[in-house]
């Protein structure tokens, strides 16, 4: 159903991109394959600048086109071209590995290099834009290609990934999990998620918060270093380690840990990106960078990341950066996920704020490609 709605939206969108042509392209990838894509070009005032929209590995290109639609319209109106390209599947063909943010970076770099060999675009000023995890991919791409003209990172992470994931998970992401392992009063005292009380479980194991946090840190480290092996065995070993700290509902421990590891390692998003650390990549990026953080972002926290980004810029002597906090959530492009929490129920969402942010990004880009 979701796909049908998306397809309809994409059809609607493609009929409303009124500013120019879309040029179908084929990109040569490093593994020898050909990837299809499109460059949307402005009809007039062509500034010979092109933004490569870096894919997020959990998103199809149609979704990206929809989410970036306002910005793309704006950029086209300003004479700036935009390139989308097909995404690879989330799992490798033999299903042995998950696609990573590093793969997304390779793809975007290959698209950049292909476009640089294309007669029409080779003299264009080209750069990358990425949101959330694909902001990290955009950084890696910008650090690996020759002379990118700009890099735009929206609500993206600068802290080492394992440290960031630990922070988010124990602080904001899963109060229900916190309540199950510690106790409900601890989960209730955490900031922000007080309203989740109705979802809290009746059974808590009573582990101290710091032990719960340390346990989670150990799991992250073990996932990072591929030390998990059989998940059920691992959960039992972890149980033995924390047995003395569990006060009640011992039977919950191993199944919850096994479920968590399965989700992170096989279905979801944690394990494949654990080695990501932005700092070394910034050293190689000399082009102007726009780094945008959301004040109400409870996924990539604005404070920790904006200060880390700025200090990295100062440390590297990069004067050509712009950092900004905007009054928005993590989903700059799609308010849907957080609408209940941040936008008061299921009513209409005021998108004017989102549009103001996109206008500012477009203005920054216009000034930097002139």
């Amino acid at each position, binding site marked *: 159903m979701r796909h049908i709605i998306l397809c309809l939206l994409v059809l609607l969108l493609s009929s409303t991109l009124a500013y120019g042509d879309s040029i179908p392209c084929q990109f040569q990838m490093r593994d020898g394959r050909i990837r299809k894509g499109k460059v949307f070009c402005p009809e007039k005032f062509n500034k010979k600048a092109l933004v490569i929209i870096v894919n997020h590995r959990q998103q199809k290109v149609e979704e990206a086109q929809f989410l970036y639609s306002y910005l793309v319209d704006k950029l086209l109106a300003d004479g700036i071209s935009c390139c989308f390209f097909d995404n690879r599947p989330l799992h490798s063909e033999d299903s042995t590995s998950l696609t990573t943010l590093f793969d997304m970076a390779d793809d975007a770099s290959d698209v950049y290099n292909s476009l640089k060999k294309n007669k029409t675009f080779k003299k264009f000023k080209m750069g990358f834009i990425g949101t959330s995890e694909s902001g990290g991919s955009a950084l890696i791409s910008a650090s690996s290609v020759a002379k990118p003209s700009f890099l735009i990172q929206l609500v993206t992470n600068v*802290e080492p990934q394992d*440290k*960031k994931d*630990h*922070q988010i998970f*124990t*602080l904001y992401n899963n109060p229900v999990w*916190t309540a199950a392992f*510690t106790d409900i009063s*601890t989960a209730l*005292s*955490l*900031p*922000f998620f007080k309203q989740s009380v109705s979802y809290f479980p009746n059974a808590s194991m009573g582990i*101290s*918060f*710091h032990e719960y*946090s*340390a346990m989670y*840190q150990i799991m992250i480290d073990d996932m990072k270093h591929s030390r998990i092996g059989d998940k059920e065995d691992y959960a039992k070993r972890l149980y033995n380690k924390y047995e003395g700290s569990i006060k009640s509902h011992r039977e919950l421990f191993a199944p919850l840990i096994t479920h968590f590891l399965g989700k992170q390692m096989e279905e979801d998003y944690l394990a494949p990106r654990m080695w990501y650390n932005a700092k070394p990549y910034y050293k190689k990026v000399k082009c102007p960078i*726009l780094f945008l953080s959301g*004040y109400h972002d409870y996924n990539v*926290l*604005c*404070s*920790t990341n*904006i*200060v880390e980004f*700025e*200090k990295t*810029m*100062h440390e590297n002597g990069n*004067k050509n*950066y*712009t*950092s*900004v*906090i*905007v*009054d928005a959530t993590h989903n700059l492009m799609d308010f849907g996920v957080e609408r209940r929490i941040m936008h008061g129920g299921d009513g209409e969402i005021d998108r004017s704020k989102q549009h*103001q*942010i996109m206008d*500012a990004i477009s*203005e*920054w880009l216009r*000034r930097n490609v002139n």
Partner: protein
Amino acid sequence: MKKILINVFVLFLWSNVISARGLVLNLRYSENESSFDSIAMKTSLSEIGYDMITYIVDKNRSISEYAEKVYEIVERYRNAETQDTIFLLSDRLSTFVGLDVVSRDTTIHGLITLTGAYNDGDNFLYDEISIKKNLEMMDSISFDGSKEHYLKTVYRMIQDKKKGKKIKLSLQADNMMKEFYTLLNSPYGTSLIDFSLEEHLRTTKAWIGFLIEEHNEMKMEIDYMNLSWTANKYGVKYSAPFSYPSDNCVEKIKQMILDLRQKK
């Protein structure tokens, strides 16, 4: 004169602790407004068998000098009383003194921090200014690069200070920059530059009670990340970051003491 008055104040409080069982040593950074009503706090703590001594920290001495003074007070208390739990209570800037004390005195039961700072000193100084500046300019891109230039100046001043160079204050400096400059040049600021969170947590045995006044979540996120990640490495015990409304501070501290004193 100020020091004499502080000492007299401490002695006055000291004379009242004779019959107490437990002690809460409240470290307050002088330039900060207290987060709570001291009289209400004393009354509330007294109900659970604790006395409170307030010790003022300011920019005129180094972190270790203040830690030494606090350590002396704790020792005097310990010699005068039967052994019972001692807690330190700190605000944001005095947290560095609290951490220095508990890293050396392993018999103090807990350090309770009110929006406490858990960071290396140099990062703390930069982060505080950066967040303030970025929030001032929320939703507004600095197209002329003035905000980024401002923050680069802050960063350079910190680096120069670390290298022992003399730091200069621009003639155009605003109040935030002037305050920063004054702190950086003071004995407290100088000692802050080399403060390492990890070095302190490495030897800390006390519980850390992590209380955050509501609407300070942005600061807390940095502090929580640093505290949890480093404390987990060294087995330091800490509470979850409990947020509280400002008018509920006294009750929250009392509750935290009651919770922590039961724990080993």
